[in-house]
């Protein structure tokens, strides 16, 4: 990766506590290149209007930009534009999926299967849906090595399983789950497969058809795009069966005082004025990532992860969670220092301008599985440099010396 890429991200010139910012929390949210910031600002400055409703030229221009962003995202993931629903983020996308599948696919006594490594965003919507439908929520186990326990998952898949929801890449362990194989197994059992791709689409080439899932959710803000915009991709025939989560303006065909008919997907799921500028900003983020090339993005992530893993595993007081092989991981590493609380590590690193995450990363059941209240996490994106990872490892040694 060309280090000049950092010039594209104005926030990376920031200092914390007098030290240059070393931002290692891209799994929580990524920084934005000027191209994204300007795309949003330009839309407000030059082409702003509401979409899909005005008969005047400006509204048509705004609609073209909004639908153009949808087409960019669709092409980025190997999909058709009518299969790409704009949501507020992964959380809303998964709630939409859980709501719709609950209403149409899940009856009392049925089962919904998740895994122990899910982010709360891919757990709580299924908990709530199972409760509403009188179904049972089950969870496939995670091994001590941080891999999905495939045998346990097979045991828990049955004709009663109506939905399997799982992460493509774990936001804590970094584990890349073999979704292609698992989706095939789940389909043989008759389940709909929903994938939380929030940590994969921003970091590696993802083709939703090759993935073999039925619904795939991800966020704009983790892939260099704006906040407030996310995607639910779905096979068009499946989306056509699902009811909307939000009802209101612009998602209907015919409205009477006591009934209405829904529009086709994706409009059916985009009630109200959508995040138009954010969608356009996401389109610019997709352009930016494609210009680098997702294979190159992935190579860079693997290189940094290998460097971090190597450094962490070489320190006997450090415990690393998840797979040891960088090729089996997303661009993140979670770890702990013996006897030191993760929040102390993060606070000490912050004094050196280094931003890492400490806490349960919205995955409390997974931390409970490993018997820890919290962990530290360093995560990377295209603007992260090997020097920053080395700097982080050296600062970690100073934190260890300060608190051991």
């Amino acid at each position: 990766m060309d280090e000049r890429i950092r010039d594209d991200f104005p926030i990376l010139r920031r200092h914390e506590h007098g030290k240059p910012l070393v931002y290692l929390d891209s799994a929580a949210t990524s920084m934005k290149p000027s191209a994204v910031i300007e795309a949003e600002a330009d839309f407000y400055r030059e082409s702003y209007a509401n979409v899909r409703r005005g008969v005047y030229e400006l509204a048509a221009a705004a609609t073209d930009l909004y639908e153009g962003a949808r087409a960019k995202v669709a092409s980025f993931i190997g999909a058709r534009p009518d299969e790409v629903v704009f949501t507020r983020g992964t959380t809303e996308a998964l709630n939409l999926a859980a709501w719709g599948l609950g209403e149409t696919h899940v009856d009392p006594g049925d089962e919904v299967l998740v895994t122990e490594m899910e982010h709360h965003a891919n757990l709580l919507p299924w908990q709530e849906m199972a409760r509403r439908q009188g179904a049972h929520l089950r969870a496939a186990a995670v091994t001590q090595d941080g891999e999905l326990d495939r045998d346990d998952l097979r045991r828990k898949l049955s004709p009663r399983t109506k939905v399997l929801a799982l992460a493509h890449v774990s936001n804590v362990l970094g584990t890349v789950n073999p979704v292609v194989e698992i989706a095939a197994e789940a389909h043989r059992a008759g389940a709909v497969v929903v994938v939380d791709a929030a940590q994969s689409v921003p970091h590696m080439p993802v083709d939703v058809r090759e993935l073999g899932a039925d619904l795939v959710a991800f966020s704009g803000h983790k892939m260099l795009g704006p906040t407030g915009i996310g995607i639910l991709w779905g096979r068009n025939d499946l989306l056509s069966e699902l009811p909307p989560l939000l009802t209101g303006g612009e998602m209907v065909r015919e409205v009477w005082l006591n009934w209405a008919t829904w529009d086709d997907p994706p409009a059916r799921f985009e009630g109200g004025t959508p995040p138009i500028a954010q969608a356009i900003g996401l389109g610019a983020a997709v352009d930016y990532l494609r210009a680098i090339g997702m294979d190159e993005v992935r190579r860079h992530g693997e290189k940094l992860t290998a460097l971090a893993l190597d450094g962490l595993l070489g320190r006997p007081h450090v415990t690393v969670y998840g797979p040891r092989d960088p090729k089996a991981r997303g661009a993140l590493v979670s770890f702990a220092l013996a006897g030191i609380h993760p929040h102390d590590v993060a606070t000490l690193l912050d004094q050196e301008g280094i931003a890492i995450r400490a806490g349960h990363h919205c995955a409390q059941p997974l931390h409970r599985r490993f018997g820890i209240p919290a962990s530290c996490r360093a995560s990377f994106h295209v603007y992260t440099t090997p020097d920053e990872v080395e700097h982080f490892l050296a600062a970690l040694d100073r934190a260890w010396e300060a608190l051991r």
Partner: protein
Amino acid sequence: MTGYEEVILDHWRHPRHKGRLPDPTGSAIEANPLCGDVVRLEVRVEGGTIADARFSGEGCAISQAAASLLTELIVGKPVAEVEKMKDEDLLSALGGVVRTRLSCALLPLRALRKALASGAQRTSPPGEV
């Protein structure tokens, strides 16, 4: 580096009054479920004065050091005075705490306030929580 003042590091490495009181008149546990910090504070009040105090628990350096320092600050003091203790008093005794970690530093003070309130109504030692 540290950013952790010497007083925090000292109390973290050498905690004072750590353990359990056999005969507390007041006891309370406060926890921060988000980070797993837990502090139990026990006090024995005699004649309106805090005759003894102990803390136990686990968590980050800041919460545990703050608990240790707090017990040092209150033992031998009149309850009426301790009840007037403000958040800022503990924070400044700690030498200052970064704003992202205030809830850790103040966890023991919350436990102390609950312990003193529990002691007012309770005559027998509280059971395990």
